């Protein structure tokens, strides 16, 4: 089933709604950069640092805890509200796959070999790819190049990001798909242009964006209803709901809010 009429939307929000509150404590940021709340204390609790590449799901510790849809109903995000002590932008993702254990001093290709995408378009259309830092690396700025497979599927595609000097823990760098590609089906390797000077710990995260909300006034909330959000689907009722934050200053601020899941 799916919500395809106004009546069905009304029935979904009035009868099958989970209102889920969240809170994440403040973490250190670089203003203007993109950060992961995967390891941040709060509600949901912090996730673990991954090792070998693995799929994530509704039951992965670190994602928002919620119930799967009942019967044959499809699950959607019906509402998102957030406030923060700092201005910034919150994005909710379905965290599909993550890996860790990559080393900031290794200059040969480091294997990632992500498993098959667990939900949504199997070819990876609409899937974003991040370098996620679990421990900061060294002080030398370096390029990181991934070798990935696109939706065709064509392997050996490449994309590059630049790691800043002393790239800090929790930071995210997003890869752009190569020209003509619409997303990432899998990532095979990461290769650094040189040593950063310190191993740190980082990995690859594949995720599909669900919703974004901008908090334009500190301590004043922002809210979006299902129409504002385009009624995004929770794929297979099994998404690993994960928060990222685009910071406006050197700390993320305390983030609080609620997300409603509806079914119809």
């Amino acid at each position, binding site marked *: 089933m799916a919500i395809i009429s106004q*009546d069905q939307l009304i029935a979904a*929000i009035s009868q099958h709604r989970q*209102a889920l509150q969240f*809170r994440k404590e403040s973490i250190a940021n670089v203003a203007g950069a993109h950060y992961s709340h995967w390891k941040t204390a709060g509600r949901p609790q912090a996730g673990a640092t991954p090792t070998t590449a693995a799929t994530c799901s509704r039951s992965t510790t670190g994602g928002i805890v919620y119930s799967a849809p009942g019967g044959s109903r499809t699950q959607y995000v*019906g509402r998102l*509200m957030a*406030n923060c002590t700092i201005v910034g932008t919150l994005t909710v993702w379905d965290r599909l796959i993550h890996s860790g254990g990559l080393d900031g001093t290794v200059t040969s290709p480091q294997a990632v070999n992500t498993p098959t995408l667990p939900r949504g378009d199997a070819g990876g259309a609409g899937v974003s790819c991040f370098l996620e830092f679990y421990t900061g690396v060294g002080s030398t700025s370096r390029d990181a190049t991934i070798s990935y497979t696109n939706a065709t599927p064509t392997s050996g595609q490449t994309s590059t990001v630049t790691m800043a000097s002393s790239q800090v823990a929790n930071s995210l760098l997003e890869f752009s798909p190569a020209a003509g590609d619409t997303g990432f089906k899998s990532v095979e390797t990461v290769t650094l242009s040189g040593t950063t000077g310190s191993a740190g710990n980082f990995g690859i995260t594949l995720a599909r964006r669900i919703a974004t909300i901008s908090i334009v006034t*500190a301590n*004043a*909330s922002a809210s979006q209803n299902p129409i504002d959000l385009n009624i995004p689907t929770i794929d297979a009722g099994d998404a690993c709901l994960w928060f990222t934050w685009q910071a406006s200053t050197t700390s993320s601020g305390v983030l609080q809010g609620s997300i409603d899941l509806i079914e119809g």
Partner: protein
Amino acid sequence: MAITTKAQLQAALAAAHRQVIVKATTSSGGTGLPSSNWARSGQNPTQGATPSTAVATSKSTVGAIPFPSAPSGQKVYIARVQMTQVNASSLEIYDRLSHMGGLSWNSGSSQTVNSAAITRGDTNGGDVVAFLECYGSGGAGSYTASISYTNPAGTSGRTGTAIIPTTNNGSIYQIMNQDGDVGFKTIESVTLSGASGTVGNFGVTIARFITSVPIPTSDSQAANAFDLGLPSIDDDACLWTTHMRSAGATGLLSGFIDFVTG
């Protein structure tokens, strides 16, 4: 029954019960902290009393927002909220399930809570949140609190944590679960990381989140049924609001809540 169509929603809105809300400005302090409107003076709802021993709260508890009863076989929903506050904020609406007070900010020892049993909804507390609620400021300094609780599975001796940047009258401090838990069945005790030097008064409040409304500027902010999630309300809910402070003294809070039945 339930409201499941546009026609039913339209009919319900045409017969909405409008409940006016007016709360006085708050005292200064607590910027950046969520705050309770329970003991905040105002015309509507009546200012709630500072609790002492742990009790379950209900629709008839003084301080709760009044709302109409649903006809037999129907439900009550919140279908629209319009709210203004001088300083930017957000308004959260909860069903306040139980509360207690009389705890001291001047103690680093375990203080007994023994919260009342949850009486409506999931009585195991799988979908509730809990706060330390400040009824009287303590001394200066920041503290953490360790909270011993029983989780929804019935396991006692679990340890939650609350961060207290300042002990500010009216502020609430959310209690975070021990890893692996969601919700609270009961709360047994609170232990602060240190004594603040001033007794003050605080307690523990357990509540179920209903919905929320942004108040991004000093202008009036309206939220419709879709914005709110058309939340249904338990017949005996103790409706309680909280707000986020963007400035110490918030200014007057005023507006209304439209309740519908169907």
